[in-house]
């Protein structure tokens, strides 16, 4: 019989950091609340427990947000309403999270949260990292699938007892799955206590769009726990001097025709981009790229740098597009790419590998080297479109 691990401290609940922008939750915040609700309902049933979904909401004049968090699945909301917190600021927000998570109050009598979720947005990722550094525990990033169960672990450090590595059952472990690399590998990350030290909360950031939010339900009840501000000048040493809306660069979501480039451009990235642009011009299309191109960071002629930046990425972690025609050039077709383009009406792919996964979700698959196929296709298209240009 393997041993069963018991943590030394008392940990409860699933906490969710709900990021807001201009007093509206970013969509991932309410998606996480929905998923936390589902996970904890199942958890309470599986373990005959009564643990809660706890939302963390900071900002200025946030009563409506606190109410929305409850209507979207939270049982408890830790809130701090202060003019200094109107916009996201990493240091004070981190301090307040640590204060709420480690303190005791009218609601919380346990040591620290059992689980903690953050949005995998620019700000959410940053605060997941600093908050978990402050709480001295572990963090997975960019998860898109979560579940809780007992796990039999054998690990050279975590389950070493004396000189022997044991097999030990860790109960109630949050399994955090994340797509790695270009979307072909899936890692399951666990945050595990060892013999000397507990690592709680078990935390991760969550890719926006991974989970479904709950409809608002005004019947749901919850309690609000204010976190007293109590920050000193040093906590506010970074200041937002100016803030302006970012002009939306390369918005592909409303385009009729998109030409996307993948790693097939590798042998001559500059030329590959040039060909893609020429084809796009004939089609009056815009240019997208796969995550593979973002990751590879090809050396290209500076004039074409803008076409290999992450803002143009199509996929689960990039833009989700639905044009009339989507042309995938040298894109192998990881599932994470598919999630960004499979609502396109017509999908044409060009790939030298006859077994490229993208074939399974293309209407036309052109087998061939993109450097040879694009110019030919472009010539034919110029003729076919001649009348409408």
């Amino acid at each position, binding site marked *: 019989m393997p041993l069963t691990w018991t943590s030394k401290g008392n940990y409860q609940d699933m906490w969710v950091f709900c990021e807001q*922008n201009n007093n509206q939750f970013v969509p991932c915040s309410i998606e996480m609340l929905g998923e936390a609700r589902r996970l904890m309902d199942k958890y309470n049933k599986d373990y005959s427990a009564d643990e809660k979904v706890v939302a963390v909401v900071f900002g200025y004049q946030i009563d409506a947000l606190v109410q929305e968090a409850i209507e979207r699945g939270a049982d408890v909301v830790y809130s701090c309403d202060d003019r200094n917190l109107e*916009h*996201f600021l*990493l240091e004070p927000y981190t301090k307040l999270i640590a204060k709420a998570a480690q303190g005791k109050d009218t609601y919380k009598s346990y040591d620290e949260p059992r689980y903690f979720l953050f949005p995998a947005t*620019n700000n959410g990722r*940053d605060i997941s*990292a*600093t908050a*978990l*550094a402050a709480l*001295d525990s*572990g963090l*997975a*990033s960019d998860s898109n699938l979560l579940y809780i169960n007992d*796990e039999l*672990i054998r690990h050279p450090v*975590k389950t070493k007892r004396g000189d022997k590595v044991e097999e030990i059952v860790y109960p109630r472990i949050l399994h955090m799955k994340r*797509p790695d*690399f270009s979307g*072909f*590998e*899936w*890692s*399951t*990350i*666990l*945050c*595990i206590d*060892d013999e000397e030290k507990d690592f709680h909360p078990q935390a991760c950031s969550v890719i926006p769009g991974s989970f479904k939010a709950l409809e608002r339900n005004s019947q749901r009840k919850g309690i609000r726990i204010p976190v007293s501000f109590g920050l000193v000048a040093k906590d506010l040493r*970074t200041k937002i*001097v*100016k*803030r*302006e809306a*970012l002009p939306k660069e390369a918005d592909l979501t409303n385009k009729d025709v998109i030409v996307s480039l993948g790693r*097939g451009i590798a*042998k001559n990235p500059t030329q590959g981009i040039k060909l893609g642009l020429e084809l796009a011009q004939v089609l009056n299309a815009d240019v997208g790229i796969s995550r593979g191109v973002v990751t590879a960071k*090809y050396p290209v002629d500076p004039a074409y740098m803008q076409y290999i*930046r992450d803002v143009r990425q199509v996929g689960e972690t990039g833009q989700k597009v639905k044009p009339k*025609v989507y042309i995938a050039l040298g894109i192998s*077709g*990881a599932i994470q790419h598919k999630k960004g383009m*499979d609502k396109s*009406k*017509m*999908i*044409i792919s060009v790939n030298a590998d006859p077994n490229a996964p993208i*074939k*399974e979700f*293309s*209407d*036309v*698959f*052109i*087998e061939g080297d993109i450097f*040879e196929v694009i110019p*030919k296709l472009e010539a*034919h298209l110029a003729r*076919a*479109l001649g009348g409408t240009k």
Partner: protein
Amino acid sequence: MVDCIVTVKGVPDFREGKVHFKEDNTLNRGETPTVLNPSDRIALMAALEIKVKHGGKVTVVSMGPLGYKTVLQEALEVYGDDAYLFSDRQMGGADTLATAYTLGMGMKKIGLPDIVISGFKTADGETGQTGPQTAWLLDYPIITHVISIEVDTGNRKVLARRLAGEDIEEIESPLPCYIITDPNFEASYRSATHRLRFLKLQEETRARAATIDSVFKAWNATELGLDPKKIGLKGSPTIVNKVEAIPTAPRERTAKVISGKDDQALAEVAKQIAQAIRG
């Protein structure tokens, strides 16, 4: 004078033809060469911009096996006055928290700089956590997703522009501080003096990179005075329990397959595309 430390990492070379997969579609790290993480190049460019404009020293640090000296060499080709590698078998298998502790302790031993700069995410781990965690452990103010930096040496301040989701923010922070560059960071050299200095520094650093030994030091855990409980596997709260290939998408459309050499078929596809666009 503004002294900078830049953190860099060796990652598998993800360029097509270099990267090797195992049969189950997972990455074959043994067969894939290690190179400088592409985002770190941007962090080094930011440090070089500060050096061109304000003088000071740029120190490059990394954690990894001794073979990572070549990675530091690559970093010095972009820019660096000297380079340190924190290397010890005990550091192996570190997650972001253990890495942040090790990097932070290393920087303390070197001497804490005015600005620490990290790139956004490594191409392999892609967590984007190590920079913010290192900053937190050093108690440095942090500015992330930075696209441009101005240093006000007189008032010991930094003014940085950063991408905050749907907004651009201008952030003011006292020195010392920790900067994490966004992939969209751009250095700007408006004066001829700066451009000339840039070229001169670039030439010097390439010479240093070629003969790295005189500016290179490797320190192990003991030399760094690290707490063995906070490094490597032991200091890492997280474990990777399983790596599996993500199943490929089930067939949703039945593709008409044509050869790229079949001119007539390409003409037909062009017509279909034209029709789909009009329709």
